[in-house]
């Protein structure tokens, strides 16, 4: 029995948040499917590149412990440059949350409640998430800690059943790298961005974790999530074949529906729906709460609940008014807008800040050396 500070994230909480965030909405896609049967190679390579980014992100946290991304930007770039940047980040994660939110609503509409209007589904979800986030970061963290085991058990069950069911054919993976590395390498950048680069959102959360636990926990959970995503791609390809995997709206759903073990274990789509629910929920909530953190820093808001509610209504409104159907969102609008900004969000700005921090440190060290001599 011990008292635990409610504003700190424990190791397990950080681990489960990152893992859930990483796997999050990847259950909806076939990642790197442009490389056909080598999609899993894409994921693995992307994970390695993602580790580089993650190293930079965690190194920033190591260099400025106890400061959130917003404070780091402020102190490194100065007030006038930082404010619009923080706002830019807020907008970006707001858009990301809207995407997650929208996809989630569409999928529930398609697979569970085809007669209920999307507005109802989305509003109910928005209110629930608002309630959860209004209770604070500790509740978000504890909920993720509680739901991650369920998520993992369901995911592993799904993969296991898919493997032992009769549609599983390892030969679908062959030949490995038939067209050389070119198609694989072409696919890697997008996969690096989504989902691995997205860990940038945790720049807002590092300050709540214990400093010496950040890096090991982050690498462990991203590695773990990456392997699970790879396993998912392998199962998708081996069960569906590269052609069907590339064209299905929800590849994993097709996999789950194909599971039939002795006429008893069928219709397991409920497992997948629970997974999509939990994954989508945390992907969205973590983005959402990052927006709340950024905005409350920007506007010096003391009452976070107000920001939570305003942002929540904003997400609901934006995704209902501006986002269109699921395929269009995924293949056209997404590519136009979001893929161009990611590089700034995920790579350029953090790298720049990191370089500045390194230079700063050197300069400080040099100055100290001068002072000493």
């Amino acid at each position, binding site marked *: 029995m011990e008292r*635990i500070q409610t504003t700190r994230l424990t190791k*397990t909480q950080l681990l489960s948040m990152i893992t859930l965030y990483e796997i999050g909405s990847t259950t909806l896609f076939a990642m790197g499917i442009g490389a056909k049967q080598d999609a899993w190679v894409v994921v693995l390579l992307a994970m390695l590149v993602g580790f580089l980014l993650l190293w930079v992100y965690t190194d920033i946290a190591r260099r400025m412990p106890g400061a959130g991304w917003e404070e780091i930007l402020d102190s490194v770039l100065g007030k006038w440059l930082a404010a619009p940047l923080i706002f830019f980040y807020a907008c970006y994660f707001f858009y990301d949350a809207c995407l997650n939110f929208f996809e989630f609503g569409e999928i529930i509409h398609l697979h569970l409640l085809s007669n*209920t209007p999307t507005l109802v589904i989305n509003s109910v979800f928005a209110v*629930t998430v608002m*309630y959860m986030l209004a209770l*604070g970061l*500790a509740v978000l963290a504890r*909920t993720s*800690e509680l739901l991650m085991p369920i998520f993992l058990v369901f995911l592993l069950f799904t993969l296991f059943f898919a493997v032992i069911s009769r549609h599983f054919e390892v030969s679908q993976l062959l030949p490995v790298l038939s067209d050389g590395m070119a198609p694989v390498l072409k696919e890697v950048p997008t996969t690096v961005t989504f989902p691995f680069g997205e860990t940038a959102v945790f720049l807002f959360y590092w300050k709540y974790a214990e400093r010496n636990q950040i890096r090991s926990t982050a690498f462990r959970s991203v590695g773990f999530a990456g392997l699970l995503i790879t396993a998912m791609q392998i199962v998708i390809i081996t069960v569906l074949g590269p052609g069907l995997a590339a064209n299905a709206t929800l590849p994993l759903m097709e996999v789950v529906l194909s599971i039939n073990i002795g006429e008893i274990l069928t219709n397991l789509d409920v497992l997948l*729906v629970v997974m999509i629910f939990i994954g989508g929920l945390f992907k969205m909530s973590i983005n959402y709460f990052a927006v709340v953190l950024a905005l409350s820093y920007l506007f010096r808001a003391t009452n976070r609940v107000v920001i939570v509610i305003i942002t929540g209504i904003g997400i609901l409104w934006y995704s209902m008014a501006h986002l269109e159907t699921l395929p269009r969102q995924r293949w056209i609008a997404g590519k136009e807008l979001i893929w161009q900004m990611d590089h700034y969000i995920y790579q350029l700005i953090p790298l720049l800040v990191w370089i500045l921090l390194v230079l700063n440190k050197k300069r400080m060290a040099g100055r100290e050396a001068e002072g000493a001599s």
Partner: protein
Amino acid sequence: MLQERLGINDDIVFRSFDAQIIGPIRAFICYNSGLVGQAMIHEHILKPLMEVGNNERRAPDTSINQLSLALSQILNASSVREIRTIEEATNEILSGQTALFLDGFDSALSIETRDVEHRPISEPATEAVVRGPREGFTEMIELNTALIRRKITNPDLVFEKMTLGSKTKTKIRLAYMKGIADPDLVAEVKTRLSRISPNSVLESGYLEQLIEDHPFTIFPTIGNSERPDSVAMKLLEGKVAILCDGTPFVLIVPHFFVESLHVSEDYYMRPYIANFVILLRYIALLLTVYTPALYVSLTSYHQGMIPTILLTTIAATEERVPFPVILEVILIGVAFELIREAGIRMPRPIGSAMTIVGALIIGEAAVQAGLVSAPMVINMAVTGISGILIPALNSVVLFTRIFLLLLAGGLGFYGILIGSLIIVSHICSLQSFGYPYLSPIAPFRSKGWNNTFMRIPIRLKKKWLRQGR
């Protein structure tokens, strides 16, 4: 003056006599006839004082100031205390002491003569065990502290005294283990108890509602127990117990959610069966909360998820029923709660007859009459019986079940997911005296798992704890 305050009460006795202390002095005693032992007064107060010639030898030189000293040598009662105000005297008399007034002295004596009739120690009705001690707390706080003390023979076990209730003046004892209990926790409990000023404290439930962290939640954040062994166990874990005079229910803080799923017997049984029973309780919790909601969502929204053969059976029986499924569930649910509540309040012999009539006859007849379907009755029976396994969470289970049921009726499986999420995030936000309510699941601590999902053998316990740290 004392007579003015207490005279109209029939149970207060005034008795005057001449005390023989260096010559006769006018004296009177005053006591509450229902709370004292008459023989004790006669033996310990009247006899020593009234026997002539007995006292000169023992109290050679009594000045006015040394009243208590002198009399404590004469009186052979177990505890004698000097009192100075009328107010004090009134309180003492009402709580069962005898007050002795002597002519010419400005103070009186309060003499311990309490001998209250009380219920004998018996097996508690709420927490019955197959294996384990069969004694339960009674309504007497002195006896209850003794029961705990007998379990923990250790000077570190502290009972702190308090009095609460401006009208009832109820005795409260705060029990904790010095050195094990967190001093901050003890201080927190004390401040919370001292901050409240209730008119009356008739049961520990009064206190519970006044000092709990979240008055508006359906989850109990303060535990209670009727069993000295489980209270002792919790005290040794570092918790604080609040005993209240007049009730066998002792409050224990902080209280965690998982504790509602445990009984002290888990530790007395061998680990295999104990772990099995704990697992069973978790399953029962899930079953009793989710069964009705899942049934409704499956039959009215997602028929595709039911295996075809089962679906045709259910559809065939549901066809004859005039109500929508959700209404049917609510009807049977209400009927079940009615039968249960009636079973509790009825005198015991009628209770069992009631249950048979309610469960067997009404259930059977309702199915035959086509008012409800047979799968529905099975489903509600599973729900009800699983609920009985976890009596500590009775109200929680009832409300979450209704909540999920309504959401499932409106939004199907999606509603259940949303409802679960709301419930989960609500539990996650709760605290009990500064400790997270869901500890040790969230925030996760491997050390606490010994008592959460499993009960590891006692032999290995020490090793496990060392590793867990």
